[in-house]
C-alpha cells in the first residue's frame, strides 16, 4: 500500500461516508414520514439542505472557539471514518483500532460543547450540559460493548473483528445480549427518542443548535450524516459481520440505522436522570452479563 493509495482512501472514505450518510438521513426522514402516514421529502433533500445552509449569505460566527467547535465536531467524525474500514478500503483502521475510534467518537460532543458554550445562549448551555450528561450515560454501555466485543474477537482492530466474523459466526449470534446492549448505546449515541433530551425543542428550543446557523448548521447536518454512517457501519462491523463488498455491508448498515429510527418515532423523551437511569441499568446489566459469558 503506497502513500498515494492511502491518500486516496483518506479522501474517499469520508466521501463515501458522506454520501451514504446522506442517504441514511433520507431514510430516517422517510421512516418518520411513513410512520406518520405521509410521503416525506424528495430524494436529494439532505443534499439540498446542506448546500443551502452553506450557501447562506449571512454567516454568524460567535468567535474563534465557536468555529473550532464545529470543526472539531465534523473533524472528529472524519477521523472516525478513516478509522472505520469499508470493503476495499481500510484507511488507517489497522493502525487505529476500535479503541481509538471510540475516542474519536467523543470528540464531536466535546467540540459541540466548546462551540455552543461560546454562543452564550442559555438554551444552548442547558442543551449542551444535557448532551454531555447523555454522553456520559451512553458511553458506559458503549465502552462495555466495545470492550466485550474486543475481548470476544480477541482483537481491537475492526478488520480483525470482521475477519473473525467472516470465518466464524456473526457477533450477534455469538453474543446476543451484548448486541442488544449495543443497540441501546446506539440509540443514545444518535440522540433519538427516548434519549433525545438534549435536543428537546419544546423545552430549550433545540438545545445546542439554537444559535447555529448557516454553515455552522450545515456543519451539524454534515456531522449527522457521518454520525449515522458511523453508527451503522460500526455496529454492522461489530455484530453483523461487516461486509465483503458494499452490497453486503450497506444493507446491514442501513438496517442498523433503521432500527433505532423506527423506535425513535414511537416514543417521547426521558428526562435527563431517567436517561442515565435507563442507560446505566439495562444495557449495562446486559453488557455485564454478556461479559461474564465472554470472559
Amino acid at each position: 500500500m503506497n502513500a498515494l493509495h492511502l491518500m486516496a482512501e483518506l479522501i474517499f472514505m469520508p466521501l463515501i461516508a458522506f454520501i451514504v450518510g446522506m442517504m441514511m438521513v433520507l431514510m430516517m426522514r422517510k421512516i418518520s414520514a411513513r410512520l406518520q402516514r405521509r410521503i416525506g421529502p424528495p430524494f436529494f433533500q439532505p443534499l439540498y439542505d446542506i448546500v443551502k445552509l452553506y450557501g447562506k449569505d449571512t454567516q454568524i460566527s460567535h468567535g474563534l472557539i465557536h468555529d473550532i467547535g464545529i470543526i472539531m465536531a465534523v473533524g472528529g467524525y472524519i477521523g472516525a471514518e478513516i478509522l472505520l474500514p469499508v470493503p476495499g478500503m481500510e484507511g488507517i483502521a489497522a493502525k487505529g483500532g476500535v479503541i481509538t475510534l471510540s475516542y474519536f467518537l467523543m470528540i464531536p460532543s466535546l467540540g459541540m460543547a466548546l462551540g455552543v458554550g461560546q454562543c452564550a445562549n442559555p438554551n444552548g448551555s442547558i442543551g449542551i450540559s444535557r448532551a454531555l450528561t447523555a454522553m456520559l450515560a451512553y458511553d458506559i454501555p458503549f465502552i462495555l460493548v466495545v470492550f466485550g466485543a474486543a475481548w470476544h474477537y480477541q482483537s481491537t482492530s475492526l478488520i480483525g473483528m470482521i475477519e473473525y466474523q467472516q470465518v466464524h459466526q456473526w457477533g450477534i449470534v455469538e453474543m446476543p445480549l451484548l448486541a442488544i446492549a449495543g443497540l441501546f448505546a446506539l440509540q443514545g449515541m444518535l440522540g433519538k427518542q427516548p434519549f433525545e433530551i438534549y435536543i428537546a425543542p419544546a423545552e430549550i428550543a433545540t438545545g445546542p443548535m439554537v444559535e447555529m446557523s448557516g454553515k455552522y448548521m450545515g456543519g451539524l447536518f454534515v456531522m449527522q450524516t457521518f454520525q449515522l454512517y458511523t453508527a451503522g457501519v460500526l455496529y454492522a462491523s461489530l455484530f453483523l459481520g461487516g461486509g465483503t463488498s458494499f452490497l453486503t455491508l450497506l444493507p446491514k448498515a442501513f438496517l442498523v440505522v433503521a432500527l433505532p429510527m423506527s423506535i425513535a418515532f414511537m416514543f417521547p423523551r426521558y428526562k435527563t436522570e431517567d436517561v442515565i437511569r435507563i442507560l446505566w441499568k439495562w444495557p449495562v446489566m446486559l453488557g455485564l452479563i454478556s461479559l461474564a459469558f465472554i470472559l
Partner: protein
Amino acid sequence: MKKELKIKQKERTNPLAHVFDDFIRFCQSKSLFMLHYCTGCGAIELPPAMTSRFDMERLGIQPMVTPRQADILLITGYVSIKTLKRVILTYEQMQSPKYVIGICSCTVNGGMYWQSYATAKKLNEYMPVDVYIAGCMPRPEAVMAGLQRLKDNIRNDKKEHKGSAWKDYFKRYDYYLGNQQALFGEDWQTPTDIIAEAKLYGLETEETYGKHTKLLEKHQTPLLPQEMRIK
C-alpha cells in the same frame, strides 16, 4: 414610485461563479426552513399543512424553531403591536436570504381587525414581503400553493428579481425604520445592526440612511446581547 437605486455590487471574478450561484439558488428553492411564528389565527392551518394530510416536507419545507436557522418567516395573520416588535426582532435575526410570507387578509390591509387599536395593518410597511396568500384563513392547499410560488420565485430570481425582497430591507432601511418608529416610538431599537449588515452585503443605498436612522443613532444604546428582551 420606487426610485431606481444604485447598488455597489462586489465584482465576482470566478468564471464558475454563475454556475455555482445557480446551483445554490436551486438548492435554496428546494430546501426551505420555515419559522412558523403563530402571530395569529392563520397558524391553525399550518399544522395540517405540515402534517400527514398535506405534508409540506414533500416540497422540502420543514419547520425550524429558531430564527437563526429559518429561511421563511410566516406571518400567519394579524400582528398585534406587541407581536410586531418580536416579529421584527425575529426577522432581523434571520439569516439572509430570508423570505417573508404574509398569510391571511390581515397582513394586507388590516383584515378583520381593521378597526382594532392593537394590531398593525400593513405588514409590508415594516418588512418586505415576498409572497401573500389570500384567505381568512387560507386552507392548507392555498398555503402550499403560496410556498410553491415562493420556490418558483427563488429559482427564477436571477431573471425576474422576485425572490429577493429581503434586499429591500437593507436598501430602504430608513423607510421601514421610520414606520417602525411611528408605531413603537422614537426610541425603538433592535439588537441587530442592520446598517453594518447592509454594508457587508454592499446593499447600502441613499435610502438606507435618512432622518430615521439618525434618530436611531441618537437613541441607540450599545448593543448588548441580552438587551434583546424588550420591555
